[in-house]
């Protein structure tokens, strides 16, 4: 087997990719649409985008890796996506950097297929690049036949960090023969510093907003505000379908304010729900999240109603819906 790619090899692979590019565009779009729904349910505000890698970017990457032992022409022609896993890409940009890991959990749970031997990467490089990369494989009965097995790279980062990541990437990889000089390096460091400060300021803003909601009588009228209040009560990010929890709570309690949510004893409900999840096996399944714990912990009070409401939810049965329908009050 010949190691190393020449320009003829690269041309063949790029030509082959052109024929397959529509599949990767569809795969990326499918991931984006799925995540849009799931992240909305989780009440995490995000910017989402997706793309298939441009053929000239594929060419550039092949050139850069032409001496990499994995980049063998026969293997690339047989299954390019197994080697180049970012042909389909989806980007999830959160506002509050603390929500990057929560959003990554949503990705993992919504799209559980993983390529063998590829672990998630939580990157915090010396260069300043910071993001979480999750590789997902499109599979399952709801995925179109033509997309089955396609790998998509989901990148998650904060909006502030995204600015730095993109500028820095363009300077590093697309310098077009002009090496970045001292001024550019210095300004890039300034951008990184500003990015870090903006991340911190957004965290503070979100914390102050949560505090404001907690101490006011204002009615919580959307799931994002409910997330603020829950995170304040639990003093940590909340995982799960906050959108569905908002529907449950707003159906059974009025007025729904930070005060009324506190009066439900959310930490106590979470503890009770955790015990309910752990029975009878005694262990908590990884699928079960905070929202499921809170909902199950409130079943003694609202079980009948929660079951009735959950049975009305349309779409595929989520773990939360199943947990509610199967729980005893």
């Amino acid at each position, binding site marked *: 087997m010949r190691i190393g790619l020449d320009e003829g090899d690269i041309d063949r692979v790029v030509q082959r990719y052109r024929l397959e590019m529509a599949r990767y565009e569809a795969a990326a779009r499918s991931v984006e649409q799925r995540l849009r729904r799931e992240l909305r349910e989780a009440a995490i505000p995000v910017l989402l985008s997706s793309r298939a890698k441009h053929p000239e970017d594929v060419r550039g990457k092949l050139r850069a890796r032409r001496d990499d032992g994995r980049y063998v022409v026969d293997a690339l022609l047989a299954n390019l996506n197994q080697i180049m896993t970012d042909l389909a890409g989806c980007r999830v940009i959160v506002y509050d950097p603390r929500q990057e890991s929560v959003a990554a959990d949503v990705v993992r749970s919504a799209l559980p297929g993983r390529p063998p031997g590829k672990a998630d990467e939580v990157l915090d490089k010396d260069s300043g690049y910071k993001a979480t990369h999750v590789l997902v494989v499109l599979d399952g009965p709801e995925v179109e036949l033509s997309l089955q097995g396609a790998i998509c790279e989901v990148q998650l980062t904060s909006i502030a960090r995204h600015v730095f990541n993109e500028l820095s990437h363009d300077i590093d990889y697309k310098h077009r023969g002009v090496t970045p000089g001292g001024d550019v390096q210095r300004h890039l460091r300034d951008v990184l510093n500003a990015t870090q400060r903006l991340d911190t300021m957004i965290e503070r803003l979100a914390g102050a907003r949560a505090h404001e909601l907690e101490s006011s009588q204002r009615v919580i009228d959307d799931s994002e505000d409910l997330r603020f209040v829950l995170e304040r009560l639990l003093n940590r990010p909340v995982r799960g379908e906050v959108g569905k929890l908002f529907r449950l709570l*707003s*159906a059974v309690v*009025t007025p729904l304010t930070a005060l009324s949510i506190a009066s439900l004893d959310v930490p106590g409900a979470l503890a009770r729900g955790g015990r309910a999840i752990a029975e009878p096996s005694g262990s908590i399944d990884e699928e079960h999240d905070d929202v499921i714990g809170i909902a199950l912990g409130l079943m003694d009070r609202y079980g009948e109603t929660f079951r009735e*409401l959950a049975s009305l939810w349309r779409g595929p049965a989520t773990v939360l819906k199943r947990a509610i329908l199967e729980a005893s009050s």
Partner: protein
Amino acid sequence: MTTPHLLTLTELVGGLERHKGRYQALDVFAASVQELRDAVEHGRLGELRRLDPKRPWFGFERDGRGYQIKVHRGIARLTRQPGGPLGLSEDQVALGLLGAALGSTKQLPGMLLGFLVGSQLAPTPDAPRDVLTVRYDEAEARWRAYDGPLGRWIREEALRAEPAMG
């Protein structure tokens, strides 16, 4: 065009008692209640008995139990009758009050909605309360929980009318 289904007093009682005493009141759009519309349209209170000389508050019985229905700003609130004799005599003043309070300008959403109001979660004046928005399922002839887009509408209307309900 088929005539829209209206809620009867019996169906309202079924909604209030569905949760076996958990909720104290069921609020619905008054224009959705058959007996209230009949009273205004035909000029007769029928089985309704006046409970208050100045307000459109009425009593009636189902299965030997007393209930009261109060109407304000287009909302009718059904509660259990605390006891005692049922009502004053029927008169035209009551019908006039009822007609004004029925809220003829309220548009029906093509759906029969109700808002169940229960007890407070804590013994403080502004404490939140147990509530549940419900929808009358005509096909199954029963009330079901509802958390769709019109839920907020009936809730806001009901809470706006509540202070006048005594």
